[in-house]
């Protein structure tokens, strides 16, 4: 049979040893799992990330959630959804009236944020003419819902959280973007729009930026986000 691997990064055409996997395919899987496990525990270098984001022209502010370390983060999601006291004070000092805030958060893959947050924003920001943007917020040990606290803390009408997704075996560095209109603690997932798998091998930066721009414009125009706000308009996969 033709080699199906030219069409997909999925583990197709692996062959068989009886019903099971041939040794090589089995051990390559084990290696990939080992690397994904390591990625989950890779710490965010917030100082380096702030330097990468600086050329975008927006101020960058560093924050952290109430989860003091990765173990606490994994066991208690609520800790990752709440700012620690020092971060709350830093944001209060920057309070204003903003159309949107970008929150760059480690999530489950700091690697994703290090690799893709700055290039994605570099594609997107030039299109946001006429938007008043808050300082970019970098957050350690953070989950998506941290944006619900960051938005009102800064006085932003919309939060866009760029966050490291769960590492997959062939993608330890996938970035997700979550848009929430009128962020506030208690928002549910149905009130957000999500674009996932942002990375050159998945959804490339220009396409991700285009989709995000569409959602941001529509969200601002219709003053809502989530299930009622569907993506349309030239957003279908190429045939």
């Amino acid at each position, binding site marked *: 049979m033709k080699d199906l691997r030219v*069409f*997909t990064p999925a583990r197709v055409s692996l062959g068989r040893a009886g*019903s099971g996997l041939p040794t090589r395919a089995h051990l390559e899987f084990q290696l990939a799992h080992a690397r994904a496990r390591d990625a989950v525990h890779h710490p965010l270098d917030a100082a380096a990330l702030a330097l990468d984001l600086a050329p975008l022209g927006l101020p960058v502010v560093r924050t952290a959630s109430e989860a003091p370390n990765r173990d606490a983060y994994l*066991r208690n999601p609520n800790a990752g959804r709440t700012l620690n006291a020092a971060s709350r004070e830093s944001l209060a000092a920057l309070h204003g009236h903003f159309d949107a805030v970008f929150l760059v958060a480690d999530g489950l893959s700091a690697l994703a944020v290090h690799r893709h947050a700055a290039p994605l924003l570099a594609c997107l920001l030039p299109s946001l003419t006429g938007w008043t943007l808050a300082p970019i917020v970098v957050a350690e040990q953070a989950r998506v819902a941290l944006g619900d606290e960051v938005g009102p803390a800064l006085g932003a009408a919309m939060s866009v959280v760029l966050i490291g997704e*769960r*590492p997959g075996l062939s993608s330890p560095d996938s970035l997700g973007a979550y848009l929430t209109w009128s962020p506030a603690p208690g928002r549910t997932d149905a009130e957000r729009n999500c674009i996932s798998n942002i990375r050159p091998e998945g959804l490339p930066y220009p396409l991700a930026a285009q989709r995000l721009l569409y959602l941001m414009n529509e969200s601002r125009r219709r003053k809502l986000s989530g299930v009622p706000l569907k*993506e*349309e308009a030239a957003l279908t996969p190429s045939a």
Partner: protein
Amino acid sequence: MPFQHTVSGRVYKFENLRVLLAKASPARSGDQLAGLAAASAEERAAAQLALADVPLKVFLAEPLVPYETDEVTRLIFDSHDHAAFSPLAHLTVGEFRDWLLSVEAGSVELGRLVPGIIPEMAAAVSKIMRLQDLIAVAAKIRVVTRFRNTLGLPGRLSTRLQPNHPSDSPQGIAASIVDGLSLGSGDAVIGINPVTDNPSTVAILLRLVDRIRETWRIPTQSCVLAHVTTQLEALRRGAPVDLIFQSIAGTEAANSSFGINLALLDEAEQAARSLNRGVPGANVMYFETGQGSALSANAHHGLDQQTCEARAYAVARRFHPLLVNTVVGFIGPEYLYDGKQILRAGLEDHFCGKLLGLPMGCDVCYTNHAEADQDDMDALLTLLATAGVNYIMGVPGADDVMLHYQSTSFHDALYVRSLLGLRPAPEFEQWFNEVQAELPRMAAMIEA
């Protein structure tokens, strides 16, 4: 109503049935996160002893989530069949376990009880059952459903072919479909999780699968697992929708966090049925569930996660689904910490689903931030297959390159079918045997 149990002179008190159920639950991180778990191993054992003495009738006396404010509770109580319950009316939870394990409780007897059992009873009895009990009872229950083929017959194990691609590439998805079909996967459904939730994507991917299915005359069905409203919009625009999918949970508030309610699911079932794409009277819905979803939406009402999960099955059974599966290890370590907790949860969910009359499958899976690996999945897969699970997932090499988690592979299904003498759905098996020699040609079609 308070409950208590005394162990060597020490009295353990449980202020109500919710507390008792939570403290009697075998240990898991989600109940600890919610602050509901037993404080010690002895307290858990005492709670199980107290729970065993609770009459089943008590579960009908007082809803655990308020009837007035929760439509799932209203569904459970309004659809309860008192006549079907009458053979159980005199039993306690412990006596119910003994009866389920007895020879008298055969397939026919268990089938008759289904409308008389409410999810809270199923959850309660599962909490005092070991894995072998969960397996032995579930193995007695067959739930058969139909769309273009027949799923759930004795001696059969089906698979959902899950050909996801990180950018919804039709060629990439087709490649995984061809790989899976060539290994005998896909009789339950060919079901794609799209990256992008919009009606145009749903329509493109449904047409892709439909073309392959019609060209090769494959007796199976397709589904694109977008939000129910997205699938409905695609359907209105003429997309070839076989099954409508939705994630569901066990409380109204949790379902609301998914952007759904029972009326919307009613509308979806009617819409799918109106297309008449399956055999007459076909089952047209596909649901996924998973312990922890209610707590994750802060919508658990102080109920433990396994009881919430069982309540989701009441939602499912209202819509006579073709397929229901728990995505047991997907939610993460804050709800099911490690392989041991995932293993038990998978068997609990399968047992409760079957006891409530559902065509229960399981996504045997884990994420990379959980303390679990392939060995844990082998154990759960093998145990579920002995318990008679209707279907499992078929993912190329067990690695879902879109959702970033590990499920079961095409090879895993071959292993367990071969080990236990299980076969695919009969119509699909016959098709596979007829076309197997020609399947390599299928790959050549991808570029065309």
